[in-house]
């Protein structure tokens, strides 16, 4: 089932990419390079025109410029608007060292390294800010830097000769021959261009290139894979500064002069066009971009009336490309790895788990599903990780509160707890993404408290993420190999030189990465050279785990590895987590699917409200009364009797076969829910079961992929949210989501945004203030200053402003103290009774919800597993199972 889905997804990708890839991929890469090289060599001979040869020289300079910018903007994803300053600095340095301006005539070859060096110095100056600012701010800082350099060029007459520029610059010489003719320049500069091209290709497919791409695609993940972010950002700046500084020197030598007009904003846009036109991040694309851009400019010369439109046309093309063809003319292709799967598996050192062929077809599901903790208890070793008194709060909310536990070598420790209990925060504290307020994290004998993620990773702790974080613009194998960063040794220079040692270690990393993929199944290893985005959800999870394994860690921290997987995949991953432990890893596992946790964990700790609630074996935990209470709420007597009289022939809200999800991830798999007028209906289920997605689908914020949603007899599944709200549905969103900077009163008014008339708004405000007098007292305060309970009241009052017939509530009890929880549920019940509002409520606290509801549904991994009257559901085994597993 899983395989057939992945095959379908794969087939779709290949088909849609076929026209581009089929055309070029038949010709081997070396042949393509050779054809281009021959074209470059014969061009001046065929064209026999000094003018066109000079144009060819310009292309060479643009190839160098474009490849320089591509490293910073395309590969590392840092939007530098100041690179033209490096260009100017390289050019002016060359001109000053080789002209009458200061009376120095140093010559071409001695000047070149000086120009590059000076540009690199400025790269350091401008690269340091990149450590502190990102994105738009980096763009503006670098643009400011560019502007300042521009001003200095115009005003520092003594050095730059101001607006007149420097002319009479010495021309280069090679082996005693002066480079003078356009043809000589042409060949001379294309050699430089070729060298820079190959340098950038080698860097792209190296340890450094993967680190850069990691920074571009996902900084936090990159640093969790051991990449020292500041260092690699600065490396990127320096490399770009060096290459562009060189381009500047070449420009000055070619023009035999340098003028402030060479370094305009137009030039900045032109080089961006070159990088983006061909396909950002792709060195070959840059070459295509440089050729197309330059010849486009020449073409315009044949239409004299259009020459003045040049920059308008350039920017229009850039605009059209970025909006309609963001991947450029030459879509970058994923790297083809040199190691085959069989080679990789053969190269496996003894002791590492390798997977026999055809593994993926072995029926493992039933076995794993029913396995239970049947295996012999592993002998547990020394303490590997020790967490003592760890605490962290965010803006007054305590997320992790004095947590202490130990992990011993060779065990699987399950961490469970209700939504918002602090499990992921705990992972983030251990792996250095957050700094703890108090407490220590000790790994073997090392104090890891507050260390940065890359240092934690390098020490041997590898993690995966709850919301899958793969590097979307890298191949599957390059994603996995990103994990090898800490133990690979190649730096920039050795990667460019491709020494034997670098080749050797890259091969080792490739083989290890493929082996780690094949650990899951051969099918995913076979897709090693695809883009990771072509994989389905389950396979991306596998790639994440394989990437973590490639770090060669002792301790694996898996954050919900089974989330979003189908039952057969869940069975597989359950078995594989156990295999991971058997092959020597220690595992900490956060997981909401209780069958998984209960099956594989040697020990479980339960976290609730940031504190450790219980520790023990799976059996002990399943029957632990406090744990059951934490998950289900306190058991209570059933007070509400169903109201059969309310149930009319047709429901107010009706979901039929609703499927929905996010991108490739299907969360709802065919839901049928009916809510009748006047009822309180609750939808129960553990974390990640799809409860919030159900609400968002009803509200029109997530589009239903299949099925129908009817409200009051009308099909609403395609309506925009605004129309759904006006037709009588309102929502109290998860986490309250009041507008923090608006006053209480304005928050209420926003709730009445779709109100039919002013009277309705006035009624709503009066009702809210009557119901919640505290809101009246604080009517002019900003909502951010309210307590959690007050915010919840505000959110309820806000939702009632439009006098909805159906009120949806998403986790109304979350994050509230027990007294407040009771209060909130009382209010909900009162609204139902006094206003007659129909209520559909998603809730984790099953007992409380069932206590006031008439009917309930139980949701498990996107499907309804039980539906009944509330009293019958209370104490139902299906609920306990949905929350705590069998």
């Amino acid at each position, binding site marked *: 089932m899983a395989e057939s889905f992945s095959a379908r997804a794969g087939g779709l990708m290949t088909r849609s990419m076929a026209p581009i890839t089929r055309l070029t991929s038949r010709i081997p890469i070396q042949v393509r390079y050779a054809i281009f090289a021959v074209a470059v060599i014969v061009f001046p001979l065929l064209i026999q025109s000094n003018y066109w040869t000079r144009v060819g020289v310009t292309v060479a300079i643009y190839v160098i410029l474009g490849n320089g910018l591509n490293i910073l*903007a395309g590969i590392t*994803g840092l*939007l530098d608007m100041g690179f033209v300053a490096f260009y100017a600095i390289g050019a002016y340095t060359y001109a000053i060292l080789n002209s009458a301006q200061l009376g120095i005539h140093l010559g071409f070859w001695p000047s070149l390294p000086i120009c590059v060096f000076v540009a690199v110095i400025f790269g350091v100056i401008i690269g340091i*800010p990149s450590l*502190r*600012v990102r*994105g*738009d*701010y980096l*763009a*503006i*800082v670098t*643009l*400011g*830097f560019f*502007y*300042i350099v521009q*001003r*200095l060029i115009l005003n520092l007459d003594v050095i730059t000769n101001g607006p007149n520029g420097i002319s009479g610059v010495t021309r280069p010489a090679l082996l005693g021959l002066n480079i003078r003719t356009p043809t000589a320049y042409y060949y001379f500069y294309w050699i430089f261009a070729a060298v820079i091209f190959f340098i950038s290709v080698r860097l792209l497919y190296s340890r450094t290139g993967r680190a850069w791409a990691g920074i571009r695609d996902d900084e936090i993940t990159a640093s969790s894979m051991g990449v020292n972010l500041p260092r690699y950002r600065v490396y990127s700046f320096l490399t770009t500064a060096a290459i562009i500084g060189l381009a500047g020197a070449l420009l000055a030598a070619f023009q035999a002069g340098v003028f402030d007009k060479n370094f305009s*904003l*137009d030039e900045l*846009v032109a080089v*961006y*066009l070159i990088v983006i036109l061909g396909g*950002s991040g792709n060195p070959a694309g840059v070459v295509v971009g440089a050729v197309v851009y330059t010849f486009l400019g020449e073409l315009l010369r044949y239409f004299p009336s259009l020459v*003045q*439109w040049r*920059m*308008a046309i350039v*920017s*229009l093309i*850039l*605009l059209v490309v*970025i*909006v*309609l063809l*963001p991947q450029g003319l030459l879509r970058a292709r994923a790297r083809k790895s040199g190691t085959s799967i069989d080679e990789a598996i053969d190269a496996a050192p003894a002791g590492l788990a390798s997977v026999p062929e055809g593994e993926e077809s072995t029926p493992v599901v039933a076995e794993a599903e029913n396995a239970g903790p049947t295996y012999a208890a592993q002998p547990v070793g020394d303490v590997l990780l020790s967490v003592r008194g760890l605490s962290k709060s*965010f803006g007054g909310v305590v997320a992790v509160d004095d947590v202490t536990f130990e992990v011993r070598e060779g065990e699987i420790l399950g961490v469970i707890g209700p939504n918002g209990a602090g499990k992921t925060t705990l992972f*983030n504290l251990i792996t250095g*993404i*957050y700094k703890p307020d108090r407490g220590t994290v000790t790994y073997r004998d090392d104090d890891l408290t507050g260390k940065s993620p890359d240092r934690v990773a390098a020490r041997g702790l590898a993690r995966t*993420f709850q919301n899958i974080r793969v590097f979307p613009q890298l191949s599957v194998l390059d994603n996995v190999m990103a994990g090898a960063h800490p133990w690979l040794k190649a730096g920039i220079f050795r990667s460019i030189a491709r020494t034997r040692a670098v080749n050797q270690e890259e091969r080792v990393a490739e083989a290890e990465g493929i082996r780690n993929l094949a650990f899951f199944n051969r099918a995913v290893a076979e897709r090693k050279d695809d883009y990771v985005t072509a994989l389905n959800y389950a396979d991306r999870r596998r790639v994440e785990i394989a990437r973590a394994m490639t770090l060669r860690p002792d301790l694996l921290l898996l954050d919900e590895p089974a989330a979003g997987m189908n039952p057969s995949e869940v069975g597989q991953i359950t078995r594989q987590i156990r295999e991971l432990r058997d092959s020597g890893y220690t595992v900490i596992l956060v997981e909401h699917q209780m069958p998984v946790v209960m099956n594989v964990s040697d020990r479980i700790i339960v976290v609730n409200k940031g504190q450790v609630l219980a520790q023990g074996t799976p059996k002990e935990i399943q029957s632990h009364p406090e744990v059951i209470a934490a998950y289900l709420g306190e058991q209570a007597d059933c007070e509400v009797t169903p109201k059969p009289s309310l149930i009319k022939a047709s429901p107010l809200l009706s979901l039929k076969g609703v499927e929905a999800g996010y991108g490739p991830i299907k969360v709802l798999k065919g839901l049928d829910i009916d809510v009748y007028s006047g009822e309180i209906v609750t939808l129960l289920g553990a974390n990640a079961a799809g409860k919030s997605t159900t609400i968002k689908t009803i509200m029109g*914020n997530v589009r239903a992929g299949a099925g129908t949603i009817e409200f009051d007899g009308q099909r609403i599944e395609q309506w925009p*949210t*605004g129309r*759904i*709200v006006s037709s009588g549905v309102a*929502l109290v*969103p998860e986490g309250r*989501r*009041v*507008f*923090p*900077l*608006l006053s209480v009163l304005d928050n209420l*008014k*926003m*709730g009445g*945004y779709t109100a039919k008339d002013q009277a309705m708004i006035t009624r709503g405000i009066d009702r809210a203030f009557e119901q919640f007098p505290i809101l009246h007292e604080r009517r002019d305060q900003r909502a951010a200053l309210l307590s959690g309970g007050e915010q919840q009241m505000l959110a309820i009052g806000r939702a009632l402003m*439009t006098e909805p017939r159906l009120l949806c509530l998403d986790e109304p009890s979350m994050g509230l103290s027990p007294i407040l929880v009771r209060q909130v549920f009382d209010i909900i019940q009162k609204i139902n009774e006094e206003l007659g509002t129909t209520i559909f409520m998603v809730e984790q606290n099953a007992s409380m919800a069932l206590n006031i509801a008439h009917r309930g549904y139980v949701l498990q991994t996107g499907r309804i597993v039980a539906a009944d009257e509330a009293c019958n559901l209370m104490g139902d085994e299906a609920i306990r199972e949905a929350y705590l597993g069998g």
Partner: protein
Amino acid sequence: MTQQIVNALTLGSVYALFALGYSMVYGILTMLNFAHGEVFMIGGFMGYVVQQQFLQNDQLTANPILIIVLMLITAMTVCGVLAVLIEFFAYRPLRNAARLAPLISALAMSILLRNIVGVITKFRARPVRTDLLLPDSWALHIGDVTVSASRVVVVVVTVITLIGLEIFMNRSKMGKAMRATAQDREAASFMGISVNRVISITFLVGAMLAGIGGVLTGLYYTQVDFAMGFGLGMKAFTAAVLGGIGNLRGAVLGALILASAETLGATYISYAYRDVIAFGLLIVLLLFRPAGLLGRQIPVKV
């Protein structure tokens, strides 16, 4: 000293009108709208175009105040419509793309507009006849300081506009919806607010302010040219960041501080390095207090 306060106030007014557009768009989309500078410039040219309609034999053919009002209205209309179109065609398709894409798109849009206007105007500056529209005889005399009529108009129009904006943002339903959407886009949509419409209106309002700013800048400097959006735009953005981007009162405060720093710098340090001072301030600011004076730090969500 009084003269310098007047100068700083005038310059600050122009920066403020300009900075608000950056700040509003950033507040709602967290994107730097490079093309805003060109919208401002086009506002200036709209003022020029209207002025030309009423100019015959070096004489105005209508009441100068009426002409200025027409200049402002035309600029606001054209800039508003233009900005809504820019958002729709160049930014909306990229709303869920990687962060780099909308920024490049904005940069390209900026260069495109500047060059279109450049070609139409033959890349030359055009005169704004402040001497006729706001004759010297209208100048104010405060003690021994003379305040030209153009400065008075710049400050007065700005103050009126800012009061209008304040009322719009805090009293009107749409203004509150804009603030709500900037604070929590999804929650706003749950209220039935059409997020796309709010974003369009944000661009509209920001551009209308820029249109006013463009006309006033033309009156103040007595000319408009195709490149005026870039340099001033950088400074306006500096002002927006200085006050805490996304914070509208902050943008006005930032504009006044920047204008004061620049005025003092030009007097006591060097006029030629006036811009260098402004950008140096921007760089230092972004490095050490990127949230600005009134802004909030937003924690990273993992």
